[in-house]
């Protein structure tokens, strides 16, 4: 595809410039050998991240969003797994690096927080001990100094009465406090890249807002870059600068947040945006759904992976679309780019009118005829 190689070139150009990007991922592919053959969980992912930037990776289960970042840190230990491509972190390729060389980076330069804060901490040591251990693993400081730093960190992430709480065990913390303690642990060595995998999914909205606020402060005060993996478009809208929408291991659409949210181009992105009931917008009678279920990595369509669920599917979709339409905002779809907003409205109307396959019930109450169906939510 001449068009796509052009895009690659422009993106690569920015990456090759060096100092501007902290992380530059090219053609990342993670495959697993299984009894059913080779499964590509991540297929040709490319993105770059500037210092202080927040990248939101969105997708449903099985989209490969977690696997892709785990592979960057060498955290995929499955002997049947194979990681290919390149991930330049400050110019050094994480994919090619040996575990011995990765270890000093992990936890120091690149920190990771997971969805469930309970599994990230051991229940048998105090929270303070665990943070101090993290500090001492990378810095040659005394236990006293590390302990003091743990108290400061707990204070920084908003744990009340940190000097007392530093001696608590993880189970004595609430869910939100635990996640804050995990973030404190991640911040212990001032990482330049923080990878957060669904960090707020298990939390209440008020706690979630506090954690997102904390992450925002972190990038301002420490200049850290953040990769945030989530299924929640609202969270991405709230905090990200760049968005990468993944489907079946591939990028369906990626670009600056404003472009992706205000002028989404890929039918899958439309579906994600339109099918979620909104807390702060006029209600709709019926949610425009995406038919079917998320593709299993074991069974990805040979052409466009989203085609089996797409209401705009046509012959061209048997062929695999490459990312194009750039420079900054790219999507992998064959539909004419100048008509996408109009097509999005058509998709919503069709979805609302027909009901969804897999939902064989008669469409219930007819739409109120006096008002046209709201194709796009919001004003």
């Amino acid at each position, binding site marked *: 595809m001449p068009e796509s190689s052009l895009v690659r070139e422009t993106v690569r150009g920015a990456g090759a410039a060096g100092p501007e990007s902290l992380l530059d991922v090219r053609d990342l592919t993670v495959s697993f050998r299984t009894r059913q053959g080779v499964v590509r969980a991540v297929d040709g992912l490319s993105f770059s991240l500037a210092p202080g930037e927040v990248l939101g990776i969105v997708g*449903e289960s099985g989209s490969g969003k977690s696997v892709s970042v785990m592979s960057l840190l060498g955290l995929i230990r499955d002997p049947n797994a194979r990681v290919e491509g390149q991930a330049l972190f400050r110019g050094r390729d994480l994919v090619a690096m040996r575990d011995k060389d990765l270890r000093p980076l992990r936890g120091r330069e690149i920190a990771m927080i997971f969805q469930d804060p309970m599994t990230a901490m051991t229940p048998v040591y105090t929270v303070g001990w665990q943070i101090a251990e993290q500090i001492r693993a990378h810095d040659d400081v005394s236990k006293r100094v590390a302990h003091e730093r743990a108290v400061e960190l707990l204070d920084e992430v*908003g744990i009340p009465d940190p000097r007392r709480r530093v001696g608590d065990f993880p189970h004595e913390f*609430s*869910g*939100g*406090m635990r996640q804050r303690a995990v973030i404190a642990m991640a911040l212990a060595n001032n990482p330049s890249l923080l990878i957060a995998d669904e960090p707020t999914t298990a939390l*209440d*909205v*008020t*706690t*979630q*807002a*506090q954690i*997102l*606020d904390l992450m925002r402060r972190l990038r301002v005060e420490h200049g850290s870059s953040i990769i945030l993996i989530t*299924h*929640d*478009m*609202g*969270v991405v*809208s*709230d905090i990200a600068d760049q968005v990468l929408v993944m489907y079946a291991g591939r990028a369906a659409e990626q670009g600056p947040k404003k472009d992706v949210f*205000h002028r989404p181009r890929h039918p899958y992105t439309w*579906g*994600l*945006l339109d*099918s*979620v*009931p*909104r*807390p*702060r*917008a*006029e*209600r*709709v*009678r*019926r*949610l*425009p*759904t*995406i*038919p079917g*279920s*998320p593709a299993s990595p074991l069974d990805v369509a040979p052409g466009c992976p989203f085609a089996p*669920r797409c209401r705009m599917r046509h012959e061209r979709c048997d062929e695999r679309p490459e990312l194009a339409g750039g420079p900054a905002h790219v999507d992998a779809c064959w539909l004419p780019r100048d008509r996408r907003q109009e097509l999005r409205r058509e998709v919503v109307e069709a979805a609302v009118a027909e*009901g*969804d396959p*897999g*939902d*064989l*019930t*008669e*469409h*219930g109450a007819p739409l109120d005829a006096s*008002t046209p*169906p709201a194709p*796009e939510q*919001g*004003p």
Partner: protein
Amino acid sequence: MRRPERADSDPGEVLLEARDLTKHFPVRGHSLVGGRQVLRAVEGVSLAVRAGETLGVVGESGCGKSTLGRCLVRLTDVTSGTVSFQGRDITRLSRRQLRPVRRDLQLVFQDPYASLNPRRRVGDILSEPMQIHGYGDRRAIARHVQELLEVVGLNASHVDRFPHEFSGGQRQRVGIARALAMNPKVIVADEPVSALDVSIQAQVLNLFLDLQDEFALTYVFIAHDLGVVRHVSSRIVVMYLGEVVETAVTDPLYDRPGHPSWVGVVQSAPDVEDEEVAPRERILLTGDVPNPVDKPSGCPFRTRCPYAQELCAREHPPLREVAPGRHVACHFPLVTPTGDVAQHALSAGGSGSAR
């Protein structure tokens, strides 16, 4: 486009009612001398569910919304207060006496996998309630199972499958089919879509609404997701620390929250912005929900409330009607008797509350 507010325009008969419902769980004290303490999961909750409406129950985790749901269908015994169904007090009925009530009052659970027996085929799972309640002979039951599968959007040929052979969304459809088996009047759904992928969540929500239209169902819909609750509910009960802090018809409740805790929750919810908007000003609630074993004196929310005053520590605010159709348990509600945003909500501490 708005869905008609059925509860508003045509108040149906009260099907399910709770009066002063309280559920305490005994917990062991932390210290050796601590003795027994009680966790006040639900405290003094009164509500009425009217025919045809969807009553949303929303609140942060640990606010008692699930326990309330289980009390309403008598899946758990209540400590005090009453639950009545169609005017009949069911609080103290025995299991056997409850049986006919259970036909009309069903529950859908959050985790469709945990709530379906993994060793039984879907056909057996669906026909069991019919056998128990004497639906008819085997042929009639088999026919009804097929109908149920189709009604919830599954294939009739799925009867011989086991739960693990379905995707999460399909399993939730099976859970819904089981609840529908005896033609219930009321379905209490406890977080029925929170375990599902976003695209599947929308399908299941549409199914809930279609079934409601088709079978004239009444729902009590318990969820923490503010978008989901807004979408399905005609009226909403907001809970905090085991108590009802606000009830109102859906849209006004979201547009002009009356209880300070609810303002904080509504403003914290991230939403997709379709266009450039100025950064929203909002109240960020600080701290965590207090432990229900050790509730604050007076108002349960006062420890996190930006408007709290001395009165709030002394006196527990009762749930009272502050504007037509709006009940708020707060000494200083954020809506005026005309339903507008109150002055103090517009000034200093709460500049973000009026959007």
